[in-house]
């Protein structure tokens, strides 16, 4: 059976050729990926990134933007590699969410 991401060769809508500006967070995700995959660190391979993107469910794959999928895949790879623990990620996310509303949650 065809996997959801493997949509090459299927009929599709018209291709948008316009360039667009990237958000700061998108550029940061790109930079994070470059730093993690640098040969002297080797904390993430592009093939691992792709596997984690392609393993997203169809609904999540379609709902997420390009760099949201990268962010998801970077997180998954760092968990799988043992670089970050689930608890570290959970605490950091809570800390950041707390900052958005001045800590009054």
């Amino acid at each position: 059976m065809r996997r959801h991401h493997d949509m090459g060769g299927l009929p599709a809508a018209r291709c948008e050729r316009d360039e667009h500006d990237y958000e700061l967070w998108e550029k940061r995700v790109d930079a994070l990926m470059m730093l993690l995959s640098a040969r002297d660190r080797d904390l993430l391979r592009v093939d691992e990134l792709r596997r984690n993107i392609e393993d997203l469910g169809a609904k999540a794959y379609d709902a997420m933007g390009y760099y949201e999928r990268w962010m998801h895949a970077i997180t998954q790879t760092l968990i799988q590699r043992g670089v970050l623990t689930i608890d570290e990620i959970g605490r950091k996310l809570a800390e950041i969410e707390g900052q958005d509303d001045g800590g009054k949650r």
Partner: protein
Amino acid sequence: MAANAESPRFAVGERVRVRRADPPGHVRTPWYCRGHVGTIERLCGAFANPEELAYNRPGLPAQPLYRVRFRSAELWPDYRGGAGDVVEIEILQHWLEKA
């Protein structure tokens, strides 16, 4: 060719069929060309197998990578473009068999 690489089994001009398989994980052989017959256009070199690299394994021995040429009408039976139109896809050796 890297020292730890499989030997190329196909020659330029040879007809090959892409294996029909649906393994899990990161697979770079597009779904739409599986089961179809094409012609070896060139050997591109040998590369660690990305299906294994995707699980942080070495992916060795490296697999020869070929550029395979397909007639568009072979891939899409209802294709209405030019009769000479082709698609070229880079495919690792372990996905190919003699046609």
